[in-house]
């Protein structure tokens, strides 16, 4: 049995804030095998970026970390700064959301890509520079030999993100973390950057931790996923399992809240070109009853689309002919994300969830195993199978 590359056990992060000490991350567990891909989903304030920073040892000093983070058996929590510096950029690398902020505007991009090689490997300037050029070529910077002497402002957003990826790749890290790597980019560039990341991960056998707020991105690019809410992992498992049977009301709410465009392309990593129609019965009703939204009768037109799902039907949805203003609204998750200092004592989603019972407020729900490694923190995952709360 191979040791997982990364093993996080009961990670807890507390932050000192004006409201006192708040628990921003409340005991999360996950592991990532070498070469595996893991998606981390959640909205602002759910603790996903803090988790990534904890892995890098970059948390602010006011934060206290408990639990265990093991990288290939080595404990990272409590490691001193010198040891962390030896790891960062070497065995763990990170790509940040805002490439302009991640690059130093006063240094040539070639030097920035070469820097980790000079520091961690002690390479000569010339050797590091040659390698930097090769890296820039690999991430798709055209005419890298000339452009590596340019400054970050001379590059477009997508190119800057490519440069950041080249920097992260320089020392051949075991683990690459990407925190919302494409949020600042256009849809087209986003697709390019994500497929580049996918290629590199496959090519170099790195593990990828992809943090995103977009379920679709995670669905297409990871094999395993975690959904975080209020500092806890509410649902976890193989991406395919989670999308097949979303068991947590929050996960379902997130998916339903996105306006849908387009055909249901198959999202499983293995079978990119075979839509598995039998497997994903389309639920085209815009109001998922599971979200506790009331169905206006005139909108429900899903029944006639059920038997044959032609490309156009899926694309147009059931309301293509209706004027935009009169189409059914998107199902939303009621209320707002509670602030960390005022999270409910029980299930963090209690109160916003249409299925809330008294028991939900009492204690934090335990993780229930649904098989195939799919776990959910909900006391009544079977309720999602039923029709009414």
């Amino acid at each position, binding site marked *: 049995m191979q040791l997982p590359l990364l093993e996080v056990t009961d990670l807890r992060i507390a932050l000192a804030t004006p409201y006192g000490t708040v628990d921003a991350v409340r005991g999360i567990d996950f592991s990532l095998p070498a070469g595996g891909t893991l998606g981390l989903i959640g909205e602002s304030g759910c603790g996903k970026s803090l988790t990534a920073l904890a892995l890098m040892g970059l948390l602010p000093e006011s934060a206290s970390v408990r639990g265990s983070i093991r990288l290939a058996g080595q404990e990272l929590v409590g490691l001193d700064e010198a040891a962390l510096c030896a790891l960062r950029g070497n065995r763990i690398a990170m790509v940040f959301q805002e490439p302009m902020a991640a690059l130093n505007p006063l240094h040539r991009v070639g030097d920035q890509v070469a820097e980790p090689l000079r520091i961690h490997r002690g390479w000569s300037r010339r050797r590091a520079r040659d390698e930097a050029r090769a890296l820039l070529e690999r991430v798709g910077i055209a005419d890298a030999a000339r452009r590596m002497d340019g400054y970050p402002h001379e590059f477009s957003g997508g190119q800057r993100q490519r440069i950041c990826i080249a920097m992260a790749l320089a020392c051949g890290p075991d683990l690459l973390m990407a925190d919302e790597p494409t949020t600042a980019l256009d849809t087209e560039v986003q697709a390019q950057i994500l497929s580049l990341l996918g290629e590199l991960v496959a090519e170099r056998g790195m593990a990828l931790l992809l943090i995103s707020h977009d379920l679709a991105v995670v669905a297409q690019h990871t094999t395993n996923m975690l959904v975080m809410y209020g500092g806890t992992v509410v649902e976890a498992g193989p991406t395919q399992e989670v999308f097949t049977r979303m068991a947590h009301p929050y996960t379902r709410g997130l998916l339903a809240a*996105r*306006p849908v465009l387009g055909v249901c392309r198959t999202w499983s990593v293995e079978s990119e070109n075979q839509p598995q129609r039998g497997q994903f019965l389309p639920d085209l009703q815009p109001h998922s009853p599971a979200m506790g939204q009331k169905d206006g009768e005139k909108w429900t037109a899903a029944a006639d689309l059920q038997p044959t799902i032609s490309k156009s039907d899926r694309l147009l949805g059931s309301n293509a002919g209706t004027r935009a203003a009169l189409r059914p609204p998107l199902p*939303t998750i009621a209320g*707002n994300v509670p602030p960390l200092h005022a999270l409910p004592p029980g299930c963090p989603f209690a109160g916003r969830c249409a299925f809330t019972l008294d028991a939900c407020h009492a204690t934090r729900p335990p993780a229930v195993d649904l098989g195939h490694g799919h776990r959910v923190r909900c006391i009544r995952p079977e309720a999602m199978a039923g029709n009414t709360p």
Partner: protein
Amino acid sequence: MSVITPEKIAASTYAVSAGGHFEHENGGVPLLQVHKLAHHYALPRTQLWEPRPQVTALQDVNLTLRAGQSLGIVGASGSGKSTLARLVMALDVPSSGRVLWAGQDPQQMGAGELRRARRHIQMVFQDPFGALDPRQRIARTVAEPLAAQGDTTRTEQRRRAAEVLEQVGLRAEALDQYPHEFSGGQRQRIAIARALITRPRAIVADEPVSALDVSVQAQVLNLMQQLARDFGVTYLLISHDLAVVNHLCDEVAVLHQGRIVEQGPPAQLFQSPTHPYTRALVAAMPIAPSGVQKPSLPPSENAP
């Protein structure tokens, strides 16, 4: 001068009947017309005696926004979307071509006339954190477009501000609070309230939800849709997110390198895009499986 004034449009555009059906009565004049619009930006000099090089942001753009038919503009960054928004709002002077508000050219109007005409076309910006003055109370921020019209009293302005805040789902207590006391989604509601206070016919929204979280996006999109239904607001919605445009608009124009390469109803356009660029855009959209099978679980022992 022309016979049609912006005031006339307000009186005669269209009424919203109880069933939510629009009646178009605008004398056949669209709310907004863009005619052969082009815009160039001058770059810094490269040679002392040469003219400054120019970059073409928009070229030969023709658009029509009809009452009740929201129009979406999609395109990558740098395609000229935001330039178009600025020109449509008359915040910039086009290099050539014309923008017509209900048949009138805002560039030809005097300052006072332009200010009064702005009542009918308002704007919502992308970043709800940058769009609100952190030092002004919400009441003043929201009432500002109305105050600029100069025909209302302070009391009236405050009353109307409370009214629009309620329409966007905020409470009247918000009037005396400051922007930092609100979340991103609430701030965007405030920005929409500010656009709404003059009861405009059209709202130009430049990436109104792209800075927001997924679940908040849905709330703001629903609000915009509801305002379109209840108050007959027509949107010129600028976005790079095809799904958002698809949800809120009746027509879409695809902008690529300053030109409109394709235009049509979103369903048709996204289903069978003809221009290669539109095809690339549609192909680049990450799509989650939209249909989710209900979990088929045996009742677990954890069931209450």
